[in-house]
């Protein structure tokens, strides 16, 4: 399979985002060599809890990583752009998919679902949303660590409200 122009463009973009300083690619008689001059031009921005542009910061943060992230991490993007690989170390916002009263800990047993520093697996319950005595489980969209919880226990949350920020785990 020959590399097309679009393939090469894509490789260049990924190379730029990665922490690699050199790339030597051979493919069926074609050869592509890429090399970065000096330090990366993209600044290293620390992943912050109140990132307002996770997609943009994800690009910047990628440059600081030692691994190449090609997969969408599954985090909910703030502006819904899923064509941008979100595999950076920026914390992802978990937004309320329902309206109601959000419980960070179980009202009956006191089991804590969400608190800063807690490690969670994808699909794990990180809170309960209550509306009219019906409880719905809110699940973590990624495996990672809860950076911060943006609402108080038993706060009313409108649809779309940011409930917490989860720092996705590094990919294997």
């Amino acid at each position: 399979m020959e590399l097309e122009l679009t393939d090469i463009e894509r490789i260049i973009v990924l190379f730029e985002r990665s922490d690699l300083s050199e790339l030597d690619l051979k493919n069926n008689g074609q050869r592509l060599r890429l090399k970065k001059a000096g330090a990366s031009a993209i600044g290293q921005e620390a992943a912050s809890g109140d990132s307002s542009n996770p997609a943009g910061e994800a690009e910047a943060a990628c440059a600081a990583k030692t691994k190449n992230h090609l997969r969408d991490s599954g985090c909910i993007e703030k502006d819904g752009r899923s064509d941008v690989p979100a595999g950076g170390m920026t914390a992802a916002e978990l937004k309320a998919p329902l309206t109601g009263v959000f419980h960070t800990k179980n009202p009956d047993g006191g089991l804590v679902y969400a608190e800063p520093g807690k490690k969670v697996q994808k699909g794990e319950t990180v809170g309960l949303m209550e509306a009219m005595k019906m409880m719905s489980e809110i699940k973590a969209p990624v495996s990672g660590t809860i950076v911060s919880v943006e609402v108080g226990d038993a706060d009313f949350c409108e649809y779309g409200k940011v409930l917490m920020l989860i720092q996705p785990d590094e990919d294997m």
Partner: protein
Amino acid sequence: MFRRILIANRGEIAMRLIRCMKEMGIESVLAYSAEDADSLPVQMATESVCIGPAAASASYLNQAALVEAAKAASCDAVHPGYGFLSENADFAALVRENGMAFIGPDPETIRLMGDKEKARELMKKNGIPTVPGSDGLVDTADEAVRVADSLGYPVLVKASAGGGGRGMRRASCRDEVMAAYQDARAEAQAAFGDSSVYLEKEIVRPHHIEFQILADRYGGIVQLGERDCSMQRRRQKMIEEAPAGCLTPRLRAKMAKAAITAAKASGYVSAGTVEFVVDQQGNFYFIEMNTRIQVEHCVTEMETGIDLVREQIRIAAGMKLSVRQTDIHPAGHTIEVRINAEDPQQAFAPSPGTISFAHFPGGGGVRIESAVYSGSRVSPFYDSMIAKLIVHAPGRQEAIHKMRAALEELTIEGVRTNINYLYLMMFQRDYLLGQFDTSFIEENTEKILKWEKACRKKAGLTG
């Protein structure tokens, strides 16, 4: 009086409610879907809360979200507007159970009047003429044929859980009854979860005449005159007016009395509408009762000078009606047209999109009810009505002239609308003569569309 009311609706009726509450010094909390985040009501309400995504089922019909939002915002009451949950007895009950007032009738009344067959039976019992029909629900196709034969054709098979023109099938002869019966039952089951149907003789070329009523909790009941809503397309009202030219004073008085009886018989509280059909011979028949404020309530407001939404809120807050029957004097003539984002030339297909420019007419006797502003969006998720234009003048011809002038000035760009269609309707001979019934629009649409094309061609306009 309430301090804070949650508005469980959107668009022009949300604006109507916000404005009334502002006048009354009541705070408004507007529940909106993510789709409506940039809408005018969100900006004008005292507070707003997002209760779900675009789909109505997850937002404007989401009872749990709405009640939770109302409680969280410390609302004393909930106003459901029209459509959505306004005639949902369960929602009315849920609001009450959670310590808030529901601005509308009691859940029991909503439930009773929502059962169209039961409502019919109640009216019959109270001496109100109903359309000749089956004696209760019709349970088998054979019975349907028997009943249809005895009534005479054409007949309508109507869903008891339906209303507003939905869940109906027509049979114009004996051979069509079986199919109409089965189709109606299937559609009723699918649409309302209840396949109960009854039969009515179809009144040919009727006028659709409805009476506005108000009732408080102290036995005060008034009727505020009628509205002629015969100008319908596929049972959707397009143009409404008052007074109805087909009513003699005697007939009007009889129907007004029947409307009051209907309100009393159903223990009605709040604003409501009693719908009748009037046949070509001047006989009137009860069809159904609408237990909500209606789209066309503004027509009655212009005729009587009474603020119906204000009365609704007062009634719900436990106050008496601010008017007695002797205070009500409909005067002049009022016409309302519904401005929809649709393309009449493309079978009235909805035309969602962004309104790049909006200009509304003004002047004496011209009223606009809309949530549109230049740059606002018309969503494909909700119905296509974007504005109501209502004019009031001393007489019908003057009202028509005023409507023409207003429609000429009204400008909406960015989406297709029915403005030109409505404008040309204001020049239709039979409409001007007041000679129309519920089949008028269907019968004259082609003519009007051809006329519009010819006009545009002559003016050198393309597209």
